[in-house]
Every structure is written in C-alpha cells, then in structure tokens.
C-alpha cells in the first residue's frame, strides 16, 4: 500500500467541489471577525472600567484555542435552547476567535495615523464626522488592508477545524472519501495541497497589495 496517484486524482473533484464553501466560510468569518474586532477596539478606547473589561475579553480570547471555542459554542448554546446549524456555529466560532486578533490590527492601524491629521482636519474646520470619513478612515483602511489580508489567510487555514462539527468543507469532504474507501492518505494530501496552494496564492496577492500601499503612503 503506497500512495495511489490515480485514486488521489479521482478524489480531487469531490474535495474541490467544497472550495466555494471553504472560501465563503472564510470570507464571512473574516467580515464577522473584523466587525467584532473593530467594535472591541472602539469600545476599548472609551477607557475606564468598560475599556479594561474589553481588554480582558480580548486577552481571554487570545489565550484560548479555537477548538475549545468551537466545542464551547457547539455544546453550550443548545443547553440554553439556542439551536443553530453547525455551519452557523462554526462561522461564529471563527469570527469570535479572530476578533481578538483583529482588534489589535485596528488598534495599530488607528494609532499609526499621526495626530496632526485630525488636528489638520479640525484646522480646516471639517466636522468631526467628515474628519473621520474623509481623513481618518481612508488612512486606517490603508494601514489595516495588509494585516487584514494576512488574517484572511489565517482564517482560511482554520476553516478545516469546522470538519469536527461536520461542516461539509474541504477537509470534511476528504474524510467522507476516506471513510468510504478506508484510504486516508490520498484525500487528506489532496485537501492539504489545495489549502497550501490557496494560502500561497492569496498571501502573494496580499504582499503585492502591501507593496503598492506602501508606495502610495510614501508619496
């Protein structure tokens, strides 16, 4: 029993068939994580007791494994009568877990904007709202674009965790083939290579984006 290339190739269409699921789970989770992370950072800036609490929540999330969060949500929510599909729970878990990291991305992205920018906006008598929309937000977006892209890759690589909740993404499909044929190596290698290729291609794109944004910033 070695590596059966023909069998490996025959498993490609089935596994690749779930690539849409994998990418949309990653995209929705990334948006969810960014939304929660942004909220965390904004509330943290309020300071005081609320700010400290949010800082602690972020630290707690960052000190605990994704797998434990997935189990927590999957088994605890039904205990309180909240019945959600495994896909929803999976996306919630990924969003929550990565929100702790994205809060730091937003923090760095906002802190990196020189204070002179908002002062200049005020000197030009822009309203607070206009200053945020036309001066602060565009610069923040430029600062966070590359780290956000890198976290999208991290989230993408974490989507196979959802196979433990039986979400039909690519690793789940690979295990389906494995349990039908009793051959684990080939489908798992195929799934692994597809993820590796996706991660490398998207990382490369993020790097190019980063270089362009740096060039724009330096002008």
């Amino acid at each position: 029993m070695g590596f059966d290339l023909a069998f490996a190739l025959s498993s490609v269409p089935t596994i690749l068939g779930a690539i849409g699921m994998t990418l949309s789970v990653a995209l929705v989770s990334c948006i969810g994580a960014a939304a929660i992370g942004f909220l965390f950072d904004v509330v943290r800036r309020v300071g005081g007791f609320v700010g400290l609490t949010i800082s602690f929540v972020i630290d707690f999330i960052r000190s605990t494994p994704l797998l434990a969060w997935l189990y927590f949500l999957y088994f605890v929510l039904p205990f309180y009568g909240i019945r959600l599909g495994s896909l929803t729970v999976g996306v919630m878990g990924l969003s929550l877990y990565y929100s702790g990291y994205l809060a730091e991305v937003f923090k760095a992205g906002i802190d990196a904007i020189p204070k002179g920018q908002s002062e200049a906006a005020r000197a030009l008598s822009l309203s607070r709202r206009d200053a945020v929309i036309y001066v602060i937000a565009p610069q923040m977006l430029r600062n966070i674009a590359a780290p956000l892209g890198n976290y999208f890759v991290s989230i993408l690589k974490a989507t196979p965790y959802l196979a433990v909740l039986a979400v039909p993404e690519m690793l789940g499909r690979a295990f389906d083939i494995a349990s039908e044929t009793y051959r684990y190596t080939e489908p798992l290698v195929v799934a692994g290579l597809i993820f590796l290729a996706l991660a490398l291609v998207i990382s490369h794109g993020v790097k190019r984006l980063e270089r362009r944004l740096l060039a724009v910033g330096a002008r």
Partner: protein
Amino acid sequence: MPMSLFEIWLGILQGLGTTLAVTAYGLVFAVPFALVFGVAQYLTRGVARLLVTGVIEFWRSSAVIILLFVFYYALPVVGVTLSALTVSAMVLGLNAGGYASQAVRAGLQALPAGQKEAGAALGLSRPAILLLIELPQALIAMSPTFVNTLIQLLKATALVSLVTLTDMTFRAKEIAQVEYNPVAIYTALLLAFFVVCYPIALAGRWLEARVAAPGSRSSGI
C-alpha cells in the same frame, strides 16, 4: 451522582501533563527548525534560498490541522510508525518553527549593516559574526514574537485530542460523555487554557517593554 464543578476542573487538569508534554516536545522541533531555516534564509541566495523558502512555506503556510491528519494517517502507510505524541509534536512544532523562522530572518535583516561590517573590521570570521554579533541581537529583539509563537503552539496542542492523545481538550470531551453539563465542562476547558497561556502572554509583554528600552538608549547615546 453528578460531578461537582471542582471534580470537572480536576478531571480536565488531568490532561494538563499531555498538553504541556506536547508543547515541550514540540519546542524540540520548533527551536532548531526556526534557527537553522531562519539563518539559512538570511544567508542563502538563488536556488538554495528557493529551496529553504520552500521548506519553510510548506510548514508555515499549510493548514496545521490537515498536516496533523496527513502525517498521522500517511506515515504508517509509507512504513514509518511513530507514536501519536511524536507525530503531533513534530507537526505542531515544525509549524510553529516555520513561523518563528520568519522572525529569526526578519530580526537578522533588521540589524544595521554596520554591525556586520564592524565585526569584519575586527577580523572576525563570518560564522563568528553571525553567532557572536548578529544572532544574539536579533533573537533578543524578536523575543516577544517567539513568546507569541509559543502561545500559538500551546493553543494548537488542543488538536492532538483529535489524534487520540488525552490532553485537556480530550479530557473535556470524555467528561462530556458521562456528564451532561456542557456549560461547566467547556467553560473549565477555556479557563484551563487561559490559566496556562495568560501568564506567558504577560511575560511576553514585560519582555517587549524591556527589549524596546535598550535600543532607544543606544540610539540616544
């Protein structure tokens, strides 16, 4: 009779030994990999650098959960039988090592060229410059990043519960089979990881503050 909260907590902590063992054993793979491949990526050019980068990217850019399953199921097929502990430590360790190697390389690249040139002016050989001048500075500067990678490794060990090792996550699942109290069990699991990882994160922050200081002092002089 239902288990008390204390018994659940103790039950999960029975897996702490395995969690820590996989982490420590993983470091045995991660540290040499990060040093050797980080330095190699820094020093090599052309084809050699492509090969080094290829190995690093394989371990760093793959989805670690799939790597773990691939090696767990595929190694016996090609005639290599390793224990689940060794396979887990190797996969998780080399994945963490891949991340850390980038910190090693970036730390070396960030040093001013004058450091290397000063070493050469003093008549030191290239290996001596690397070992005595470049690496110590790079490793100290990047130490907060290494602490973060250690925390990532510790958290990733939760995956070993999927390949039959009885770590804290495995214990939580076991307890959940005999005891219907998911709130207590999974809260305890999260808390157990928090108790282990948070002090390390705090130590990393302390280190970060310390590491930032000498650099600013030297530039002041």
